[in-house]
């Protein structure tokens, strides 16, 4: 049985481009062979001479052999099929030959994918199953349908019998019970390809970016203001933040009077303001009277300041309510409110107990009356307000769950429930100016819409739901004024209510609309066919017209021409004027063609690649209403003001829930995305792509080529201009690796069509590419907001299990070691800084191609599949050193990533016995590469034990720390952590006695560091930022920082270099000296100033780092310190100890003292640089005297290493190190 393990995978032969034929050479479907279910179990099939033909080893080997059985394996990410050859070997089937696939095995492939999918998702709905199948088999001409499955019912039955997991799937059961008679709707998606894709995209988009549209509604009212029911609502853009049923149809269920718009009207509406907001006349929620809410002039009613409330009150009304017993206070409050002071209305306090709401605790959630300012805690709710009718006590339903987000909707006891409606009588809303003449207004609206309709005659003709229906609606409207018997009969119970589900409803609506449009289009076709073709008609028209013109010339018709002249003649005096008929005909033609083009069909045609987010406009325009934004912004400010005036946090939270804050920032993000083209200026052409510049690609190729082996396939999943693979090919050809193949994907045609396939990467099927062990994938995917798109691209790439992934992605992209068995080989954050990208197709004022740079340069990552990471890392070390790049940072990056990699690995393997086996080979690797100067065997032993031990502890921290982002938590966590650390380490300690003192020190420092942190909290949530402060200003902190540094030094040191802890400088007695060393650099830094950190070139830093680097996890945080270069990714994964303990201090101090001390070892990697180190400012050297004796070692080692030193110049940046001193 084939397994997903890479190593054994290579042994199993995989046949590509295969097909089967029988003895007569006819194509043969392999599923007719006996099916081997297990060793003994075999389902009989046809006994025929069948042979498999195809290619193996990437087409290098032709396969032609006889087969006698087949089997399938559902355990892997994709269903795998194998056939048993005559000589009893299993051969895995890769991608079939296309013609064979379509004709002979399509059904079985669909069936297998089907079983595979339902096995993995037993709860999957029929729709998702079909969506999945149509996605996988989308390129077949015939879409997958249940007919395909019916053919293999027996096989499915067999599979279900044998596999418990399958037996769980409801859908499968349903299918097996009634194969071939599944509901039609199950297949809808397959019949409407356009919409499958859309739905899917939407799902994906929502998954990836978990703030889907419906979240916006979570905080706000989402029931109709008329009938208090959910459904398809139109949200008022104004201050009231109410929603309404816009059309009769939408409010049908609750017999809602609705706004009485027609669907086209709603669709055409840009913004909807309810009459109240339009005229700034709002009702007081307490007394129900209208009043002016215009803030600028004399306002009569004022809005409650709570962000989601949107209710207005007369100052008097609300003051009385808020201070019911205390008249004086009430009058005072009334005055305050009248002068514009903010207030929160009574609904934000429980009327029974007077306390506020807590949405997170269900008992403390509110039940809010929709008719008057009354609310209860769920726990305080009187019995009479019940969720269900209780006949014997004469209680009728007054409360509904799920209609309001986290709240219960009630009608309090003051309101009499209308039996028929199930709600109180709906006379509560008064629109201004019409007031009692409400019905008139409605009639007016109706008339307007009627007018509109009659204007669009042609439009109506083609409508599938033609005028009948809308007129019907009108009729109904009239009757609705007084409930009729007919209506009673029709009406559904008011009690049955729709929870508001904007998303799904919208989708449904979309589908409906599409159906309608489909119908409409169909209808219009025969209509067109019945009349002569357009050309004919045109010809007729022209000839007619021309005759008329001639006629006109002969006998000028004064009236007609006079009427027409002004319009036509203004445009062109020489042109003959058009008569009314012609004009009308023309406008009819325009209208006709307009109706044939609908928004839906356009949207359908412009099928977005799966990576694009859908219809931002809907969200921006309709969901983020001005009123909501205004209200929220106001509330945020008011809340802060309250807090500053000394109110309690609870009070502030009444005004502005914490969720509002996150909502505000989400809105901001969305608007930013939506407005991006305008905010960023009209500077680009193209699809918002950005390509990596060729010189950068060359640099990448230069690095990557070392890892490419003969026969690999390089896949660029978003190739842009397609330069990368061309460059790589050139490079590889030059270096003799000529057997590589290339595959490039993009959704746009590339400039260069070398091995290019225009395809959305998300839709590339597994079979298109060879097995993972031969795949090298990657490069520059679109990033998306917070790396969302990049994540999707990577996820897709991981489906292919490539051995290497080379990625240019933003640092916030999810790391691959979190997603699968991958290790970071290296990361290069510098390579792509500066103007590394360009905007294809755009030119600036000078007609030069536009360059682009990212504020935070996206790092270049190389990820390796875990099984091969040791191998790749060895290459990295070898070549990373040899790299012709002289920028020291390149080397640094290698080392740095090396380090972080170790950590990550530990993270993953922590607590696992495989740690040892896993680490040892690597440790051996490293020493071999580096020869630390300790006798090799000895050192290896040490390193393997020590490394594991100390890494363990780090991994440990890692575990505990990663989640801690909030500052307040850190302290606690750190304590826990240290405690845990201790516990968990004890076995390790036994193994290695020398370790424990260090770990204790470590722990202690750790804690003290955290105790310090609150002092510097204001800097922000990122721990690392704090370190400017400790270092430069506070002596106490620098103490602690130093101390923890020391701890980390030890830790790193022991971890990385396998040093024995008994050695003097790692023991505790060392601390005085270390501290003295450290004190000075601090002062040096202070004088240097923060600027120095930030701006004195990277090179210097990295230089310094690189020396210490080797155990120096803190380097990442430093980078972050230094101008936010965006290495967040790694930092976040590093033990928080480091990102906490003091990136700055850690790095610099350690760079100073420790690098020097360990120079003998470290400089092996940096040997060419050592001279500079030597020439570094005297103080440092002095401070590190005690280690100097060791320094000479490096020289002899240079030789022994056998690393060619040639390309490395001694550090070319003496200036920088000088600068550092100043």
């Amino acid at each position, binding site marked *: 049985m084939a397994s997903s393990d890479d190593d054994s995978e290579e042994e199993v032969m995989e046949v590509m481009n295969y097909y089967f034929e029988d003895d007569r050479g006819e194509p043969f479907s392999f599923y007719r062979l006996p099916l081997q279910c297990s060793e003994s179990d075999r389902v009989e099939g046809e006994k025929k001479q069948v042979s498999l033909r195809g290619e193996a080893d990437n087409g290098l080997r032709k396969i032609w052999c006889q087969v006698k059985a087949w089997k399938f394996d559902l355990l892997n990410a994709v269903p795998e099929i194998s056939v048993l050859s005559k000589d009893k070997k299993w051969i895995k089937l890769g991608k079939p030959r296309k013609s064979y696939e379509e004709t002979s095995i399509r059904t079985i492939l669909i069936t297998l994918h089907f079983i595979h999918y339902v096995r993995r998702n037993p709860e999957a709905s029929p729709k998702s199953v079909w969506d999945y199948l149509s996605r996988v088999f989308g390129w077949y001409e015939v879409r997958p349908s249940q007919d395909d499955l019916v053919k293999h019912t027996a096989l499915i039955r067999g599979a279900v019998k044998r596999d418990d997991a399958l037996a769980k799937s409801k859908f499968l059961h349903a299918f097996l019970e009634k194969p071939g008679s599944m509901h039609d709707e199950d297949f809808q998606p397959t019949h409407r390809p356009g919409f499958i894709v859309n739905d899917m995209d939407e799902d994906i988009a929502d998954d990836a970016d978990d703030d889907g549209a419906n979240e916006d509604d979570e905080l706000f009212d989402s029931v109709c203001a008329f009938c208090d029911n959910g459904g398809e609502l139109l949200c008022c853009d104004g201050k009231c933040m109410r929603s309404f049923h816009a059309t009769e149809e939408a409010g049908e269920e609750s017999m809602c009077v609705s706004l009485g718009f027609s669907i086209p009207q709603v669709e055409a509406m840009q913004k909807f303001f309810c009459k109240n907001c339009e005229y700034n006349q709002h009702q007081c929620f307490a007394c129900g009277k209208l009043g002016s809410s215009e803030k600028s002039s004399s306002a009569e009613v004022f809005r409650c300041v709570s962000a989601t409330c949107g209710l207005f009150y007369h100052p008097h009304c609300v003051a009385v309510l808020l201070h019911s017993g205390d008249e004086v206070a009430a009058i005072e409050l009334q005055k305050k409110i009248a002068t514009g002071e903010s207030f929160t209305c009574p609904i934000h306090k429980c009327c029974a107990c007077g306390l506020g709401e807590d949405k997170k605790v269900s008992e403390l959630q509110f039940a809010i009356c929709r008719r008057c300012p009354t609310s209860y805690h769920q726990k305080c709710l009187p019995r009479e307000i019940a969720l269900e009718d209780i006949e014997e006590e004469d209680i009728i339903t007054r409360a509904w769950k799920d209609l309001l987000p986290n709240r219960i909707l009630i009608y309090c006891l003051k309101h009499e429930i209308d039996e028929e409606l199930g709600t109180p009588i709906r006379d509560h809303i008064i629109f201004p100016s019409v007031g009692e003449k409400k019905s008139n207004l409605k009639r007016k609206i109706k008339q307007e819409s009627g007018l509109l309709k009659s204007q669009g005659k042609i439009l109506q003709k083609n409508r599938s739901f033609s005028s009948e229906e809308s007129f019907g609606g009108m009729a109904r409207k009239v009757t609705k004024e007084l409930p009729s018997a007919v209506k009673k009969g029709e009406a559904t119970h008011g009690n049955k209510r729709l929870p508001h589900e904007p998303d799904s409803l919208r989708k449904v609506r979309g589908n409906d609309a599409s159906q309608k449009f489909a119908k409409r289009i169909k209808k219009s076709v025969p209509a067109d066919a019945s009349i002569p073709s357009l050309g004919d008609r045109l010809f007729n028209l022209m000839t007619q017209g021309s005759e008329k013109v001639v006629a006109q010339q002969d006998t000028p018709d004064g009236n007609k021409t006079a009427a027409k002249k002004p319009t036509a003649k203004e445009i062109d005096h020489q042109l003959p004027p058009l008569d009314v008929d012609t004009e009308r005909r023309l406008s009819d033609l325009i209208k006709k063609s307009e109706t044939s083009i609908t928004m839906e069909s356009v949207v359908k045609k412009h099928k977005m690649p799966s990576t694009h987010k859908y219809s931002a406009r809907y969200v921006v325009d309709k969901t983020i209403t001005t009123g909501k934004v205004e209200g929220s912004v106001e509330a945020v400010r008011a*809340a802060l003001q309250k807090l500053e005036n000394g109110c309690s946090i609870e009070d502030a939270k009444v005004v502005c829930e914490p969720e509002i*804050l996150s909502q*505000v920032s989400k809105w901001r993000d969305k608007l930013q995305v939506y407005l991006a083209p305008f905010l960023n200026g009209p500077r680009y052409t193209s699809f918002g792509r950005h390509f990596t510049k060729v010189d950068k690609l060359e640099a990448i190729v230069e690095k990557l080529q070392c890892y490419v082996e003969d026969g690999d396939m390089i896949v660029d999943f978003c190739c842009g201009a397609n330069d990368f693979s061309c460059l790589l090919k050139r490079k590889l050809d030059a270096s003799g690796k000529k057997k590589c193949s290339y595959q490039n994907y993009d959704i746009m045609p590339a400039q260069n069509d070398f091995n290019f396939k225009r395809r959305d990467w998300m839709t590339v099927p597994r079979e298109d590419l060879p097995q993972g062990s031969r795949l090298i994938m990657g490069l520059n995917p679109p990033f998306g907001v917070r790396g969302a798109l990049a994540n999707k691209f990577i996820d897709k790439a991981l489906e292919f299990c490539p051995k290497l992934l080379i990625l240019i992605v933003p640092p916030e992209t999810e790391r691959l070691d979190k997603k699968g068995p991958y290790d970071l080989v290296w990361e290069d954050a510098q390579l792509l800084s500066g103007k590394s990208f360009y905007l294809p*197709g755009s030119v600036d004022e000078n007609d030069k191609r536009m360059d682009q740079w990212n504020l935070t340069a996206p790092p270049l990552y190389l990820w390796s599949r875990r099984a091969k990471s040791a191998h790749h890392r060895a290459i990295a070390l070898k070549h990373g050193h040899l790299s012709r790049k002289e920028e020291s940072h390149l080397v640094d990056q290698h080392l740095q990533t090396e380090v972080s990699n170790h950590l990550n690995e530990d993270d993953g393997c922590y607590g696992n016995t495989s740690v040892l086996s896993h680490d040892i080979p690597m440790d051996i690797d490293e020493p071999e590469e580096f020869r630390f100067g300790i006798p090799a065997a000895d050192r290896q032993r040490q390193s393997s034990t020590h490394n594991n031990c100390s890494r363990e502890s780090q991994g440990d921290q890692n575990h505990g720390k990663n989640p801690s*982002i909030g500052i307040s938590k850190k302290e606690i966590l750190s304590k826990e952590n240290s405690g845990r650390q201790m516990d968990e380490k004890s076995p390790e300690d036994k193994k290695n006695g020398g370790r424990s003192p260090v770990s204790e020190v470590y722990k202690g420092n750790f804690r003290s560091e955290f105790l310090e942190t609150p002092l510097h909290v204001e800097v922000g949530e990122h721990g690392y930022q704090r370190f400017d402060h400790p270092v430069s200003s506070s002596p106490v902190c620098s103490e602690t920082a130093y101390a923890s540094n020391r701890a980390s030094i030890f830790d790193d040191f022991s971890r990385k270099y396998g040093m024995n802890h008994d050695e003097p400088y790692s023991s505790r007695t060392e601390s005085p000296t270390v501290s003295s060393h450290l004190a000075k650099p601090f002062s040096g830094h202070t004088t240097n100033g923060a600027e120095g950190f930030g701006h004195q070139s990277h090179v210097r830093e990295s230089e310094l780092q690189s020396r210490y680097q080797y155990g120096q996890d803190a380097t990442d945080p430093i980078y972050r310190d230094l101008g936010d270069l965006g290495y967040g990714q790694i930092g976040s994964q590093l033990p928080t100890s480091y990102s906490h303990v003091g990136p700055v201090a850690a790095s610099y101090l350690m760079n100073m003292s420790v690098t020097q001390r360990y120079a003998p070892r470290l400089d092996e990697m940096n040997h060419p640089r050592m001279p500079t180190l030597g020439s570094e400012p005297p103080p440092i050297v002095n401070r590190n005297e005690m280690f100097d004796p060791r320094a000479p070692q490096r020289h002899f080692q240079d030789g022994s290493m056998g690393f060619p030193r040639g390309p490395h110049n001694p550090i070319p940046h003496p200036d920088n190190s000088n600068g550092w001193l100043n």
Partner: protein
Amino acid sequence: MASKAEAEADYSLFEEKVRRTVYVDNLTPQATESVLRTAFNQFGSVRSVQLIPNYLEPKTIPQCALVEMEKPDQAKEIISILAQYPFMISGMPRPVRARAAEPGMFDDRPTLPGLKVRWRWLEPNDPKFEVATKLKGMTRRHASEASFLLKSQLDQEEMLAKEQAASLKANYKKYEMLDGLKTDRTAHHLAHHYNMGLKD
């Protein structure tokens, strides 16, 4: 006849060129040759760009151009991609349209081999005079109809532009309000009070 063969060869060359060429429409008046060249270079290599001047209409209306690519396939590719995705040039929030070029679009096209154009005067009493007048009238009529269509189209576009501007303004206002919270750090402070992290 050498000249005829030559003309035919010429014409087939021209036809080849037509196949390689994309007609792009709805360009912003600001689009220049180099803008177009760069814009279309991302789909292949552009051989030449020829803006089609518009002698008859006011300057503000959209331009059109002929973009000749290296290969006919690239031209096809461009047409399909532009039909599928809205493609904006020079930051113009209006998608460019593309379709296959036709021989008639080239003002420097060679004459069709074998085509002979003859002229002659018609006397008013010639029976063909009436046909000619009709044709002439038709052409003029056609032109005026076209200008009517154009006018209504421009009107519509103006409406749309107004609508878009209004919605843009509204949305920008919202954005400014929200952004204000961030820039004056109100949101930040409040988040701090609530003890919650606020992502940047």
